[in-house]
């Protein structure tokens, strides 16, 4: 789950990290009021779940009310990388001498947290990591102890942060780590942490992404969750409780188990087809779930053909077959050809049960995928 900048900043500020004065606004007049409260110059920042907002035109500076009106009018309602902007943060613009980067994330290979500091803040840190990795100081953290104060200092000095602000930056890094741990975050980031003329530090941006699997113990954060789908079908999948990812092709794919569904997509591609989606129906395949999955792929206008690939483990093939028959018999006409392949427990019984007036049945994964690709291309392979 991703928090908006304004939400993350609120949490950072509560924990004692200095942040610029700011107000949230949903229309131009609110933005103007906010500008008056905060004082010019201000930054007007789109609140959407995408990175690189600045480059995409989602952040503008305004030195007076006219400029603020213009910026707020341009940004509110804009489409930013597929996301509709309905709120802006109007924020005191900070005069800075330096921009730093601070981040905490999981080092997956090591299975432990890592804190990162760079004196090259204010730009895309992944570009810095790719081009000049030595510009990022990294410090692995033993999760049994947390971040030692010396480690925060070490990372800050290793990154070449000027001595007069090193203590303040180390302190912010320590707080950022504590927040990362306390909030079950996957990423916590300040980019940039601005250093002012007077030697103060201010978090000019804030990222806090939280582990979805841990939301059960963070009801305050769960309450901040907002829909961030760019796609109606992905929204629908959320309602049905499917793991679903939409792609651009025309072969709809339904299967059980993440690895097998991914492998089915790859096979569609291997046989020169173009996968339309990833849809994991999960364990069990009750008629309602099957019907919902079919509804998902049938309602994708790009889909011309469907492959249904189920490997029955504990789930029995005959139950799956009944589920498919039930779901499809509710249609007067099957909207798009469906190829079914069943394997595993009771697959033979399942294939006997499948109504071949509703579906085409194939015995192997490869044959089923090839057939579905043919169906999608009108047999003109």
């Amino acid at each position, binding site marked *: 789950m991703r928090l908006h900048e304004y939400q993350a900043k609120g949490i950072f500020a509560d924990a004692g990290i200095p942040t610029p004065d700011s107000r949230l606004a949903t229309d131009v007049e609110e933005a103007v009021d906010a500008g008056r409260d905060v004082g010019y110059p201000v930054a007007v920042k789109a609140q959407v779940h995408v*990175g690189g907002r600045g480059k995409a035109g989602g952040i503008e500076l305004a030195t007076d009310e006219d400029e603020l009106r213009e910026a707020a009018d341009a940004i509110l309602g804009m489409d930013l990388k597929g996301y509709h902007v309905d709120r802006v943060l109007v924020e005191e613009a900070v005069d800075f001498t330096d921009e730093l980067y601070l981040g905490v994330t*999981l080092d*997956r*290979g090591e*299975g*432990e*947290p890592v804190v990162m500091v760079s004196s090259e803040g204010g730009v895309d840190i*992944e570009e810095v*990591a*790719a081009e000049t990795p030595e510009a990022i100081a990294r410090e692995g953290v*033993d*999760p*049994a102890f947390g971040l030692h104060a010396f480690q925060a200092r070490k990372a800050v000095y290793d990154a070449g942060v000027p001595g007069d602000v090193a203590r303040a930056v180390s302190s912010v890094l320590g707080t950022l780590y504590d927040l990362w*741990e306390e909030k*079950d975050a*996957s990423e916590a980031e300040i980019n940039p942490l601005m250093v002012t003329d007077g030697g103060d530090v201010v978090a000019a941006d804030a990222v806090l992404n939280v*582990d979805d*699997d*841990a939301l*059960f*113990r963070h009801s305050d954060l769960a309450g901040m969750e907002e829909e961030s789908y760019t796609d109606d079908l992905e929204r629908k999948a959320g309602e049905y409780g499917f*793991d679903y*990812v939409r*792609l651009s092709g025309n072969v709809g794919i339904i*299967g*059980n*188990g*993440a*690895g*097998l*569904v*991914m*492998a089915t*997509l*790859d*096979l*569609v*591609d*291997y046989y020169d087809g173009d*996968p339309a989606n*990833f849809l*994991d129906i999960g364990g069990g395949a009750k008629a309602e779930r099957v019907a919902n999955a079919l509804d998902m792929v049938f309602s994708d206008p790009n889909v011309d053909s469907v492959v249904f690939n189920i*490997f*029955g*483990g*504990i789930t029995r093939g005959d139950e799956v077959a009944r589920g498919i028959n039930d779901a499809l018999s509710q249609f007067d006409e099957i909207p798009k050809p469906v190829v079914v392949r069943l*394997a*595993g*427990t009771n697959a033979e019984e399942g294939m006997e049960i499948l109504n071949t007036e509703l579906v085409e049945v194939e015995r*192997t*994964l*490869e044959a089923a995928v090839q057939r579905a690709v043919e169906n999608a291309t009108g047999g003109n392979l």
Partner: protein
Amino acid sequence: MSVLVDEDTRVVVQGITGGEGKFHAGQMIEYGTNVVAGAVPGKGGQAVDGVPVYDTVHEAVRREDADASVVFVPPAFAADAMFEALDTSLDLVVAITEGIPTQDMMKVNRRLSETDTHLVGPNCPGVITPGEAKLGILPGNIFSSGNVGLVSRSGTLTYQVVDNLTKRGIGQTTAIGIGGDPIIGTSFIDALELFEADPETEAVAMCGEIGGEDEEAAAKFIATQMDTPVAGFIAGRTAPPGKRMGHAGAIVSGSGTGTAESKIQALNDAGVPVGDTPEEVADHIEGFL
């Protein structure tokens, strides 16, 4: 021979009184697994399918001489269940639970590093030595005894490859589902190391997927430490970056790490053939035998 589990493995099922735990304990027993105890706090003194239940894992181990556990405890309590298991002298802990907070697993793995216990999972189908024992939710009927070791991040993809092997009359020593989470107890290298040391395992099939760099690390291990031939499969070639493909750990990062291409390249560089289809994996394995 086999790795991790065999007919002598004495299993305690943590969470045996819950729906999943009860059902799969029954399935494990039916398969022939030596399920000797259950452990559920507050349920000590009860019995499930004739299996005695204890309040603590310690008591189950002490009274029934268990040496392995299977965890069917809900996500919020699963880390505590694993810490409890790791506090005993168990040789093996298999965690089936899906949806455990990542930071919990980080701490469990930190504790694991201080013990001699093998932890398989979480978010995995378990471990099976065909004809002897299964710990987890794998469908026993599709496996057959033989000389191929299997290690995989995905449940149903494992079944697919096993099915392709079984249809050719190729059986398995042991199959290990290591799980689809970003932090897991047993890595590909850990599993490969076990198979390399097992004299009966003549070839290994490994099924990886996008996300992380465990397959790349495994490739180096295979090139430098293994004599047993390995064939691979990598799922997720068509996965777009930044999208989680079902498994919590199956994601190509925005910066481009964790791609199928990188994993396939690393395996090929290590001399490991990677099948374009599950059927091709079986072709390679058959070629090795």
